């Protein structure tokens, strides 16, 4: 009995491995294309062995017009957006996690509701509103909107992580006369470092990849982040240089992949996000 069970398990493992490898190969094809094409002097649209390896594609795009300015714009938008999101969500999570009030429950329910609203739907009214109040085509307007759209989920995550910090240490600090703000900054936040890291990285990654928000709210080409400027490869340059497009995609995607790996390593596997979303 034990023998048949173990041999059955072994054959089952082989079957599972085979199944996963088939799916992995399918998912890998587009990724393979971008990596190979970025190094290929004669890149086209299908996966193929490059005709010799070259860094010419990268040389061609690594200048301020094509790459550095859009990446800097992305960094400004996402950096300040993330900073605003993390600071506001940490401040907001503190009373929600530490004090009991009649307002907590309705507030948290509203926040939870807002986390799953389709932001895409409100972009047309946001555009109309931004035109009225002269925030259209400004970096700060876009940053504020980025932060606001990311805040519900950030508050939700931050509050859950904060609930995990025992409050005995804070009570000691309170008896020594520390204020709420002091105990938040000196005691609670350092103890929930991984949680703050998750909120920071998650917000940044979401903003970095976001196309629709800057596409709608920014107009001047000089202010466009990489997510929008990448479309120029198709627009007004006539013949599309697929090798350069691939190289740009690699450069633009690398930061978020690195950030993800960094956080996933520290938290082990699933980003802890699956768990956080499940509540």
């Amino acid at each position: 009995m034990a023998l048949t069970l173990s041999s059955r398990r072994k054959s089952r493992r082989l079957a599972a491995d085979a199944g996963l490898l088939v799916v992995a190969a399918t998912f890998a094809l587009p990724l393979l294309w971008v990596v190979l094409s970025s190094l290929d002097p004669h890149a086209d649209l299908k996966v193929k062995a490059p005709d010799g390896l070259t860094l010419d594609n990268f040389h061609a795009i690594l200048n301020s017009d094509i790459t550095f300015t859009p990446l800097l714009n992305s960094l400004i938008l996402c950096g300040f957006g993330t900073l605003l999101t993390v600071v506001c969500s940490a401040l907001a999570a503190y009373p929600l996690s530490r004090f009991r009030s009649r307002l907590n429950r309705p507030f948290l329910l509203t926040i939870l509701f807002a986390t799953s609203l389709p932001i895409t739907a409100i972009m047309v009214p946001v555009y109309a509103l931004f035109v009225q109040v002269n925030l259209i085509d400004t970096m700060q307007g876009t940053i504020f909107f980025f932060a606001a759209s990311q805040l519900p989920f950030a508050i939700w995550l931050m509050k859950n992580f904060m609930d995990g910090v025992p409050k005995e240490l804070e009570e000691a600090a309170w008896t020594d006369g520390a204020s709420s703000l002091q105990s938040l900054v000196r005691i609670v936040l350092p103890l929930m470092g991984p949680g703050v890291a998750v909120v920071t990285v998650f917000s940044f990654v979401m903003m970095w990849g976001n196309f629709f928000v800057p596409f709608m709210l920014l107009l001047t080409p000089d202010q466009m982040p990489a997510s929008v400027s990448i479309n120029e490869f198709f627009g007004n340059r006539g013949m599309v240089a697929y090798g350069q497009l691939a190289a740009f995609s690699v450069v633009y995607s690398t930061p978020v992949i690195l950030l993800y790996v960094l956080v996933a390593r520290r938290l082990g596997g699933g980003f802890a996000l699956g768990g956080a979303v499940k509540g």
Partner: protein
Amino acid sequence: MTTAPQHTGPGVRKVPPGPTAPAPQLSTQKRLFTRTLTRLLPLSPALILLLLFLAGPIAYCAYIAFTDLQLTGQAHSSFVGFANFRTAFKDSEFLNAVWLTLVFTVLSSLIGQNTIGLALAALMQRASKPVRTLTGGIVITAWVLPEVVAGFLLYAFFRREGTLNAILDWLHLPSQNWLFTLPILAVSFANVWRGTAFSMLVYSAALNEIPKEITEAAEVDGASGWRRMWHITLPMIRRSIGTNLMLNTLQTLSVFGLIWVMTRGGPGNKSQTLPLYMYEQAFQNSMIGYATAVALLLLLVGSLFSVIYMRLLRTEV
């Protein structure tokens, strides 16, 4: 998710020593009120941002959906009641967009991401570690990539001279211009490629929580893999299935960049889902009021799913 029990330590001391605070005759109610206010003060930056940039636009959306606001230097817009909505439901392009959104959501979210995510998670439970790590890495990379980059990769994959047709030729199967003949299928597949990782993560976490003894007992009793899946595993993770379906659907409803990059909604309007239709009405046709009415409908559908999702979550907040 336990809420911290009430304590009285800091709040009482934090009442500012203003002219009213230390007065002994002050009613407890008023003191409690001041205390609550001080405690909720850190909420204000987030609250201001949310009110100005999220609640504001939503309210504005609900208002201009009932006006004939236009993009092109119109002196003033006027209230038109439900005219925008009546126009929408008579417009064949709008109905086409609704239909395509439905197809896109069912194909890519309900069938694609959800089923493949569950299958991957289940296979991963049995597979060897290196294969598991490799597959997880590849699938998650597709998820972490910026939306527009994912769009380009899949655009290249489905183009006439792209990878898919190269493989089909190699297998001596008929190839075709996918982005032209079956654009909605191509963008649905793209959304599956990009979004499956999320379902995979949710289901992996859920499957890990099922006690080993239960599945092992069923295995010893001779229940086959499919029967174990159907009678034991699925009922045990049904809450995760519910939340995952809702979140997938909500995410899929608001996909814009992926489709924009791959097909711009075309050819014609054969892959024009609601967000792309809304965009076209607002900026190609300058009908902000009408586009906002469409947006409001999208928002209402989204809210409905969101409420169902909260119901399913049923957390103690």
